[in-house]
């Protein structure tokens, strides 16, 4: 049965639960599901991570190659982020060109990383105006039970933090001598936290069904100092300004906890 129909049937139940201060899986509103992060998972990739957030499972790989810089940033490396929502992950994902959902996830995760300035793009320059490192960040959702935003975001930063720039492989660039591999220049650890509104309550780390019953979603990305680097409201429905402030406040606390889990598992 289509999960849309299941959501339709379960809406009242989930809303009533939320009004009673409960969730369908027994968690508290502020409780994230168990997170496990394994890194250096794919040997062929320059960096990689697999994140399990409850029953959501995302694999992230970092690949790098030498390319030419953009004319407006002649001494900066580049970052390209994409998300593959594989049909194996849930019956809601379909084969075919990237859906709006996958584009949204990739762009929101990308913004959290880019806007926190966590990647030192200047350190990814090989020869100004000519050769730079291009970084490709690809996330594959292979099992989906909601909140891909936070899981992918954790996976991406974990993969970047454990990535190695394969500098020893490059040869034949005029004026550039032999180089040694070096760790990916990562300067900050942005962490995203996502909440949905259900029955007037704010629920963090929504499961698939909690994200499907019609409430709005807000994802907020925090840097190490607790500043907000990216936000995205998604899905139907609306928040009040006070709810937004509340999600920023509570999300900031969760970001600290998630960052601690992340750093411990590297």
């Amino acid at each position, binding site marked *: 049965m289509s999960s849309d129909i299941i959501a339709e049937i379960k809406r009242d139940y989930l809303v009533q639960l939320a009004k009673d201060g409960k969730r369908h899986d027994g968690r508290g509103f502020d409780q994230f599901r168990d997170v496990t992060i394994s890194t250096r998972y794919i040997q062929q990739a320059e960096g990689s991570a697999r994140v399990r957030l409850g029953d959501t499972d995302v694999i992230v790989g970092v690949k790098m190659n030498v390319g030419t810089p953009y004319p*407006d940033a002649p001494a900066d490396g580049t970052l390209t982020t994409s998300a593959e929502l594989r049909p194996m992950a849930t019956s809601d994902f379909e084969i075919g060109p990237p859906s709006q959902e996958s*584009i949204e996830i990739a762009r929101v995760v990308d913004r959290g990383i880019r*806007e926190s300035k966590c990647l030192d793009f200047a350190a990814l320059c090989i020869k100004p105006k000519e050769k730079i490192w291009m970084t490709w960040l690809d996330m594959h959702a292979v099992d989906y039970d909601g909140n891909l935003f936070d899981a992918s975001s954790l996976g991406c930063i974990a993969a970047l933090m454990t990535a190695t720039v394969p500098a020893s492989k490059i040869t034949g660039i005029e004026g550039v001598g032999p180089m040694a591999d070096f760790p990916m220049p990562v300067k900050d650890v942005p962490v995203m936290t996502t909440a949905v509104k259900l029955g007037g309550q704010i629920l963090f780390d929504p499961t698939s069904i909690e994200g499907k019953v019609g409430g709005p979603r807000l994802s907020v990305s925090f840097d190490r100092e607790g500043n*907000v680097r990216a936000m995205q*409201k998604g899905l139907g429905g609306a928040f009040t*300004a006070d709810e*937004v402030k509340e999600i920023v406040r509570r999300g900031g606390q969760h970001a600290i906890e998630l960052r601690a889990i992340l750093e411990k598992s590297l």
Partner: protein
Amino acid sequence: MGGKKPEGMVLINEQGLRADGRRADQLRNIKIEAGVLKQADGSCYLEWGGNKVLAAVYGPRECHPRHDQDPTKARVRVRYNMAAFSVSDRTRPGPDRRSQEISKISSEALDHVVLAHLYPKNAIDVFIEIIEAEAGTRCAGVTAAAVALADAGIPMRGMVTSVAAGKVDGKVCLDLSREEDNFGETDFPVAYVNNTKEIVLLQQDGHFSPDEVSEALEMTQRAADEIYELQKAALLRKYQQMAGAEDVEGDAGHEPQIEPEPQIEPEPQIEPEPQPEPQSEPVHDTGVEN
């Protein structure tokens, strides 16, 4: 965001004024006109600073492809598109990732106010064309689309108004210009439902402390109230003109009564009743001073 500010570029001077002379909480000039296209069920033309935007609404109509249909309500489908000539370097026609994302979040924003359950299996298609772009096109697009929806007579819970705040030279500012958008630190587009103050669209990229988020929310909400008055006035003007034309046709020679203040309905989402007074006032230019 993210552009490197050229050496010596000043975006806010010592008097606290911005490069184009605006105060931190001041909008660019906005001009809104409803009902500008003939074929569409509803439409809107909007100029906002250097932005020129057209929005058109078709529907409710049968939803194609079929698998897009929702048996419980109409699909509100926004397509945001930039014209190839709208920016300094030609953009390739067709949807790119950026415009797909904007289309998605704009659909979700407008879906909240449209009484979509009245039209199961239908589509309400909203087309936003950015004819010329100067920062803030998604806000201009959503604001125009909401007027076009009302112009099409689509039942709505409230009017949607979108406006961005940002950070320029370390200061929270309203409605960034192109320069400020390129070299500022933060972009923060929001859309509100006017009568409930609900937030139906919210994005941020760049750097804000939690306090600056609150400041930007308050600043954008005040601005949205200002813009809402222009949306409402545009709709009233259109229906007054229609009523005026009918009046002349059906009752030639009759002296039309001109009320100095148009009766403004508190509930803008309801299609304004055609009023018999013609009003020949041209497109209203905002004095968004104060």
